[in-house]
């Protein structure tokens, strides 16, 4: 019991690994997304500075005294200084690209929009470009303003955004891991309750577990309870069998002892021979009784231990009838088989059911009146086999279900009752109006319509 199953694994470790993998993938995705978002947000923020400065400069361009003049306002440069670490360049270009004022800059790319990235003296820079068309009396043409900055502030902002996102993710991840550990512990708690409840039990205590468990674990408790119920049933059957056996064996053995004591004191050879004859016949009876007891123990054990398979009860009934005919050749004429046209499918152990039916047939032959009619048919939701004879039945009285312990039926009916209990079926007797007695076993129908086992 203490050996660990070979496929042992830790739920918690598994969950942690899966979570770590999810977090890793999530982290990579979030960092990619936040890097791209951070870059976009930073560009948007600092592009506004460039645009604002360019707008102020281009608005300061005037045409006066026959030439273009620019009186750049201080605020334009102060705006650019809001990116505190960035160097900036600017240029006001005339219609032919000639420099009116500002820095000597590479011309903007042909396909450039309002913003473009370029390199000036080996430094990565981002530029804003604005155009303004003049239609003065002395001057018609387009003025272009270029304002560009190094990218330190926007890179720093982008990095900050990315970092903030990653810190958030890291915190969320830590919380998730902690929650998972707690959740696993909470989820496994009912199992520990069950474990504690079972460990604390006395070995003979097989009462159903009654624990407040979530319904996910409830089925486990149910299964455990069913298992214990089955163990309890087997044990009680065994107990009963031992009690039966000792009871049933004690009388013939006591008789044998009495006869043999009688024989020891008997001087008359003739009477002695008679006594020995009685001893012999009692021994034969005893041997048959022992066979019956062992067979019954085997059958009941099978019924509890074997897996229940789909079987056709017609076939089981037929085999039982054949077995009885073989064992009791003189009874063959008295047995009638009445089988349904369709398969009568139930779940069960064919061997133990066959024994149960054989017992019913033998009982009918031995205690009832011929003919013995065996019927296998579907009966409502149940699949049934009935054994009917023309006799009065086991005992006058109400046609009630036959209890396992009913003494009148002898050993045979105990076997039938035990087998049916193990199959979850019913066993009862009835007296039809047409007379006679009918013993019926009924099993639940098979769950799936399968081909009968070969």
């Amino acid at each position, binding site marked *: 019991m203490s050996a660990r199953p070979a496929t042992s694994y830790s739920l918690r470790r598994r969950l942690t690994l899966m979570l770590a993998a999810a977090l890793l993938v999530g982290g990579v995705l979030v960092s990619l997304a936040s890097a791209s978002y951070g870059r976009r947000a930073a560009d948007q923020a600092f592009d506004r500075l460039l645009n604002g400065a360019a707008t102020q400069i281009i608005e300061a361009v005037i045409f006066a005294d026959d030439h273009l*003049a*620019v*009186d*750049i306002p*201080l605020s334009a*440069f*102060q705006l*650019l*200084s809001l990116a*505190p*670490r*960035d*160097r*900036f*360049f600017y240029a006001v270009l005339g219609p032919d690209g000639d420099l*009116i*004022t*500002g820095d000597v800059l590479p011309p903007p790319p042909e396909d450039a929009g309002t913003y473009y990235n370029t390199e000036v*003296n*080996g*430094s990565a820079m981002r530029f804003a470009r604005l155009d303004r068309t003049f239609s003065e009396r002395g001057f018609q043409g387009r003025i272009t303003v270029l304002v560009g900055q190094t990218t330190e502030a926007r890179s720093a902002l982008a990095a900050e955004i990315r970092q903030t996102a990653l810190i958030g993710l890291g915190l969320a991840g830590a919380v998730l891991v902690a929650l998972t550990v707690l959740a696993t512990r909470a989820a496994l708690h009912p199992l520990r309750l069950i474990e504690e409840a079972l460990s604390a039990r006395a070995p003979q205590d097989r009462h159903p577990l009654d624990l407040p468990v979530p319904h996910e674990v409830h089925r486990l408790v149910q299964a455990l309870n069913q298992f214990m119920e089955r163990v309890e049933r087997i044990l009680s059957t065994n107990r009963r069998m031992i009690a039966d056996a000792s009871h049933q064996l004690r009388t013939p053995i006591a008789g044998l002892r009495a006869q043999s004591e009688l024989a020891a004191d008997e001087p008359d050879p003739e009477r002695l021979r008679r006594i020995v004859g009685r001893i012999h016949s009692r021994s034969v009876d005893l041997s048959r009784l022992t066979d019956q007891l062992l067979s019954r123990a085997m059958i009941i054990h099978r019924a509890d231990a074997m897996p229940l398979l789909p079987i056709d009860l017609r076939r089981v009934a037929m085999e039982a009838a054949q077995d009885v005919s073989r064992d009791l050749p003189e009874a063959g004429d008295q047995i009638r088989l009445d089988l349904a046209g369709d398969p009568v499918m139930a779940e069960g152990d064919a061997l133990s059911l066959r024994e149960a039916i054989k017992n019913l047939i033998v009982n009918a032959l031995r205690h009832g009146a011929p003919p013995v009619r065996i019927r296998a048919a579907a009966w409502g939701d149940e699949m049934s086999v009935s054994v009917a004879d023309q006799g009065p039945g086991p005992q006058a009285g109400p046609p009630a279900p036959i209890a396992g312990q009913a003494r009148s039926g002898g050993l045979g009916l105990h076997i039938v009752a035990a087998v049916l209990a193990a199959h979850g079926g019913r066993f009862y007797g009835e007296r039809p109006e047409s007379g006679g007695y009918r013993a019926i076993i009924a099993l639940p129908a098979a769950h799936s319509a399968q081909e009968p086992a070969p």
Partner: protein
Amino acid sequence: MIRARSLLGTLLLGLGLAATPALSAPPGPDFSAMPDQVAQFGNPDAPRHLIIRAAADIAFFTPVIEAFLASRPDSSITWEDWTTNALHSRVQAECTVGIASADLVFSSAADLQVELVNAGCAQPYRSPQTSALPPARNWRDELFGITEEAAVMVFNRRTFPGGAIPQNRFELLDLMRASPELDGRIATYDIGASGVGNLFAFQDSLQASTFGSLLESFGRADVVATCCSVGIVEMIREGRFLVGYNILGSYAYAVARDDPDIEIVLPSDYTLVLHRAAFIPKAALESELAGAFIDFTLSADGRQVLEQEGLIVSSWPDLPGSPIKGEVPAGRLRPIELTPALRLGLDNMKHAAFTRSWNARIKTSPRITLP
């Protein structure tokens, strides 16, 4: 090492000398600019040699150089003193071709320094000292504001023609209108010759609407624009000029320390404060030593030496007889922050327009040489 670098310097100087001044501006980089003075500090055979290219009078920085070298017997320093514009033109030329014949560029023309850093001529330097600087004195970890020097008004009490000494620009305006004896005896920087003069004048034009009327009054009063601070203060002390406007406070302070008649006024409407700014050129050979020099000037020891020289206006030592005592009211000081916004005054059109309106009113006198 030293020999090779001196050779490079000589070669460059030679190039400059070879350029023919008669020709119009050559299309390539212009290496013609030359330092006014060169001074050598420390053991010339020391294994490490720092070349500082500065627009800063050697006399003012000698104490800090000597304090720096005191703890570094393995180092020596060459200090070149340039005018701001010449220095700018030379460093720009070197930057264009990717060389650096100096390890540290140090100039009072903060806007020109910003321009060079903006062009990518500097390399970053980070240390606890530079990181502790406020953003206004540290741009990109490349340009550092070393000093705090005010643009002041300077008067000579002895020669001043009666009445109260003006404490701000409004009082100066009133005085100029009321006192014809000041005509031709007010001096300020020539913005064409002095980068720092140009910076102060342009910042004035941004600071207040008084600038227009100030310029107008300057024109009426025949203000003399000349170069440079030391010369102007010296002439005030001698009585040639009565008023100096927008004079670098550190130079005025040095004269006032020896002459109780010199009065320095931090204008109460606003006082511009200049951070003389330093950067390490990208191609500098002794960048580590240059960084150490920057750190020293920013350290407590270095700052104390700078304070003694009057290079930190917020903690000027008391002057005998001077109204400037102890703490300067903080709200009065308007530091010129080291940001790329300083490029505005250097915009071709802006500068041309500004110079035009200046020249329309102020007459420029040739450079005054020290006696």
